[in-house]
């Protein structure tokens, strides 16, 4: 026995060790293990040194379990703690556990009060718990008996009154109900029930009063839920159904009873709510429930839905019969638009127009519909035209002239001034001034006082040198808007231009009158300087040299002695045919002035002058422009903003000033490499021309294509499509589009990407190049070119690597090789000048026979 006791294995651990071990576990928050240790210790240790740590361990464990939502276990642990400590569990701990476990009876010690306020729980806990107990008592929960075992407590009395009130409400005895509710004291646990029941009785007769009562129920009490359900009853017809479907079944049923809704329609609403999450499901649901939902309404709704769900057309036709052909085509057009198939969309919209035109009874809305459709498809038509022009370099393919659809639309609906303005601006932008003028006259007949139209008319009159008309229109504009300084300036400009016209034909008296009128319009120093200059010119024409020079000097000082003023006066003097000595003097003064350090504003003013001179006096401007080049070049590094530098580049691009364009674009690219326009213009100067594009690095091409598509998407706000189209061939820009359409008549010299080839296309082309150069160099006489290519074709056809390549592809490879050879020969020649306007394809220089595109066409024909 002694041996056994002394054996190490069975001997109990020393008490001191256990105490230390338990304390360590407690410190490490290992409460479960700590409880075990201290329980063991309690069995061995008669004194209560383990008591305090065990209580701590129980508390820690309870909180740990509550954290894991193990409320029952947490409650038991707390009860164990209470048993050992002999103290009640604190209310703030037991309350959430009792509520969560439904063990409301555990709260009995806190409510078995003897009317002493100090023994009650704090108000923020008391109110919701009292309400909860009131509800449990009303629904007959037996746990309430345990909490309030003594039947003489006020709680039971209040419950009886609440039940009485409930019965009175149920039996519709409203007058008695008020009395019964009044018997429930304001501090009773049933006080919120009192508000709730009263609001129920009022919700239909006095909804505002009922809502006010419901708002008095605190949101943290269990009565807040029923209160919000009753509040739904006061919702408007529009919002009620949505609120209804978001309630649970019991609540839905209550609202339906109170407001008067058929229970079957609630079920229908619930299903409709679920179906509405997807358009196809909603469509099917509506079609399947025509009887419950009213046939006409379902038909109208489904018809509306077809515009976003055109796939539903067959189901719709099955249910409601065939669709009106116009509607059917409309849905097909919308479907095509949704799929970004613009060609199909246009086709269906045009069919819609045909159907509308063919209708026997032309109702009022038909012309408007036609006009709106034409306006809708107009941007696509213009886009297609631009692409076609980019491909074919002429507009013969175009069925209609530019802006045809927009112009046609105005014959059906001429009452929209915005459309007139859009059309006229567009037509003038493509330099069709005569057509623009005709349209403008038509528009002004309909809208004689439209300021936007009058402004365009003034600008056009100035452009067309009809200065009297310009003044007349501008004066009308001034009557409409007397404080517009821009109009005054336009009038002044027109009057001075008219004076200039008179000076040219030596009618100096008439010129003087115009200048006098212009003087009355001048409102600032620059305008006065302008007028003074013309007065000086007139004096010089009258051989009053000293007076004339004095007036010109005054004009300069009025205009601030800027390089811009010097430049303008010099060019004007030349144009007005002043004495050579005076012109020379003005030129000399200008040269001196241009030696000053450049200033940002002067540069911008000078460049805007270039803009003004285009296109009417381009040639005159071109001569004088040489004087400015050095000055403008000095201005390249100035701190222009992105927008200013971009504008400068655009002006130089339009004026064909490649040297300055390159300098300004390169500087811009250096400062803002991420801005596309500087990159585009720099590349444009570097690579534009017939063959330059072949030298563009692949990564640059990729970026250019991306910029192009981005610009196209945003309607080209920065005018980048033009320069890009001039350096990149259309095949690169529209690689994947119209593939099927062009497959048989592809005139592209570029290799398609998806053709089966024995090696990389570039390698193949290079091999053919080497083969050609080894065998037969290109003829010097262009007339021999065709024969040379045919001979090459025969020779190349025999190459083993060409064995399995289809004939059309062989032609393309051969032509690429030929083009490469010709390019290398042409590279030393200067590139041909850029056509001035891409909107007038006829002005583009004729291609020579050495153009590989042309060769390809000849060859295939």
């Amino acid at each position: 026995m002694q041996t056994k006791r002394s054996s190490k294995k069975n001997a109990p651990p020393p008490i001191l060790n256990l105490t230390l071990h338990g304390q360590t576990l407690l410190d490490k928050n290992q409460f479960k293990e700590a409880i075990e240790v201290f329980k063991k210790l309690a069995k061995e240790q008669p004194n209560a040194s383990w008591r305090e740590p065990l209580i701590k361990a129980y508390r820690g464990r309870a909180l740990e379990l509550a954290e894991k939502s193990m409320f029952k276990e947490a409650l038991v642990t707390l009860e164990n703690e209470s048993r050992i400590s002999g103290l009640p569990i604190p209310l703030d701990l037991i309350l959430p556990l009792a509520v969560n476990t439904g063990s409301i009876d555990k709260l009995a010690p806190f409510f078995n009060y003897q009317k002493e306020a100090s023994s009650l729980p704090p108000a923020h806990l008391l109110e919701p718990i009292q309400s909860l107990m009131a509800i449990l008592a009303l629904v007959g929960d037996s746990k309430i008996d345990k909490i309030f075992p003594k039947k003489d407590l006020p709680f039971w009395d209040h419950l009886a009154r609440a039940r009485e009130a409930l019965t009175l409400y149920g039996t519709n005895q409203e007058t008695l109900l008020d009395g019964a509710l009044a018997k429930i004291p304001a501090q009773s646990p049933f006080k919120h029930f009192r508000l709730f029941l009263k609001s129920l009785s009022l919700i239909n007769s006095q909804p505002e009063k009922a809502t006010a009562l419901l708002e008095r129920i605190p949101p943290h009490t269990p009565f807040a839920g029923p209160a919000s359900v009753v509040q739904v009853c006061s919702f408007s017809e529009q919002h009620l159904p949505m609120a209804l479907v978001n309630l649970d079944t019991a609540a839905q049923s209550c609202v339906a009873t109170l407001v008067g809704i058929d229970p079957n329609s609630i079920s229908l609403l619930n299903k409709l709510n679920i179906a509405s999450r997807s358009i196809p499901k909603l469509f099917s649901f509506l079609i399947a429930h025509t009887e419950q939902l009213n046939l006409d309404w379902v038909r109208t709704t489904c018809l509306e839905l077809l515009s976003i769900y055109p796939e539903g057309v067959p189901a719709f036709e099955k249910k409601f019969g065939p669709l009106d052909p116009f509607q059917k085509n409309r849905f097909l057009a919308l479907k095509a638009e949704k799929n970004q198939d613009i060609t199909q969309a246009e086709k269906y919209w045009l069919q819609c127009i045909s159907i509308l035109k063919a209708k026997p009874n032309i109702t009022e809305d038909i012309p408007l519909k036609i006009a709106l459709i034409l306006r809708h498809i107009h941007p696509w038509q213009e886009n297609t035209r631009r692409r076609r022009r980019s491909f074919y370099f002429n507009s013969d393919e175009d069925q209609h002239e530019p802006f045809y659809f927009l112009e046609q639309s105005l014959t059906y609906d001429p009452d929209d001034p915005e459309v007139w303005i859009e059309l006229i601006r567009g037509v003038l932008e493509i330099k069709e001034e005569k057509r623009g003028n005709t349209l403008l006259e038509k528009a002004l007949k309909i809208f004689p006082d439209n300021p936007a139209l009058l402004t365009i008319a003034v600008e056009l009159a100035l452009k067309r040198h009809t200065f009297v008309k310009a003044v007349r229109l501008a004066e009308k504009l001034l009557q409409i808007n007397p404080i517009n300084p821009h109009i005054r300036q336009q009038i002044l400009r027109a009057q001075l231009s008219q004076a200039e016209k008179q000076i040219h034909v030596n009618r100096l008296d008439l010129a003087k009158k115009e200048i006098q009128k212009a003087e009355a319009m001048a409102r600032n120093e620059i305008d006065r300087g302008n007028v003074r200059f013309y007065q000086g010119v007139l004096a010089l024409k009258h051989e009053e040299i000293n007076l004339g020079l004095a007036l010109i000097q005054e004009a300069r000082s009025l205009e601030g002695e800027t390089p811009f003023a010097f430049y303008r006066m010099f060019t004007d003097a030349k144009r007005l045919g002043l004495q050579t000595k005076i012109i020379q003097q003005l030129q000399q003064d200008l040269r001196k002035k241009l030696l000053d350090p450049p200033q940002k504003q002067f540069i911008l003013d000078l460049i805007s002058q270039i803009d003004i001179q285009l296109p009417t006096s381009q040639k005159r401007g071109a001569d004088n422009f040489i004087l400015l080049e050095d000055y403008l070049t000095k201005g390249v590094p100035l701190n222009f903003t992105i927008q200013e530098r971009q504008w400068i580049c655009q002006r130089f691009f339009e004026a064909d000033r490649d040297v300055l364009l390159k300098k300004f674009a390169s500087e811009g690219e250096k400062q803002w490499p991420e801005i596309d326009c500087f990159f585009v213009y720099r590349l444009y100067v570097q690579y534009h021309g017939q063959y330059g594009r072949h030298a563009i690095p692949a990564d640059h091409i990729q970026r250019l294509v991306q910029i192009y598509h981005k610009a196209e998407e945003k309607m080209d706000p920065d005018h980048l499509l033009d320069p890009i189209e001039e350096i990149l061939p259309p095949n690169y820009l529209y690689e994947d589009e119209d593939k099927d359409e062009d497959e048989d008549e592809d005139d592209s010299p570029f290799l398609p990407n998806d053709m089966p080839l024995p090696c990389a296309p570039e390698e193949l082309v290079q091999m053919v190049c080497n083969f050609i150069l080894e065998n037969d160099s290109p003829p010097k006489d262009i007339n021999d070119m065709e024969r040379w290519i045919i001979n090459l074709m025969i020779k190349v056809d025999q190459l083993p690597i060409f064995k399995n390549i289809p004939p059309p592809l062989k032609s393309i490879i051969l032509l690429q090789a030929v083009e490469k050879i010709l390019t290398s020969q042409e590279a030393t020649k200067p590139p041909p000048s850029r056509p001035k306007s891409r909107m007038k394809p006829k002005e583009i220089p004729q291609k020579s026979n050495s153009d590989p595109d042309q060769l390809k066409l000849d060859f295939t024909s």
Partner: protein
Amino acid sequence: MKNPFQILDVPVQTDDETVRKAWLNLVRIYPPERDPTRFQEIRTAYEAIKTYRDRSRFHLFEPCEPVLESLMRHGLKRAPVRPLSEKMILDLLGESSRNWRMRWSHKGKDESS
């Protein structure tokens, strides 16, 4: 785009005056300082169907999603109004107390986390 006719609560075949009145009425209910999103929605709807031309354009080209509230309204069938029975009230209260306890549990968890 949401259906502007349904947003303004005007019939599909309407006139300029009705649209304008409906718009002004809604703007009074939802001024920009109180509900800027709703105000913007109402304004966009008004701009879309302001004139006969706008409405015609809208009918032709604008695919728009139906407003659920408006669809729901058509599904609603009326029945006589009745007071709630005792049982219904007690069911509602019982359900609410259960929901409240559940919310309490979640609230307790959220607060502790």
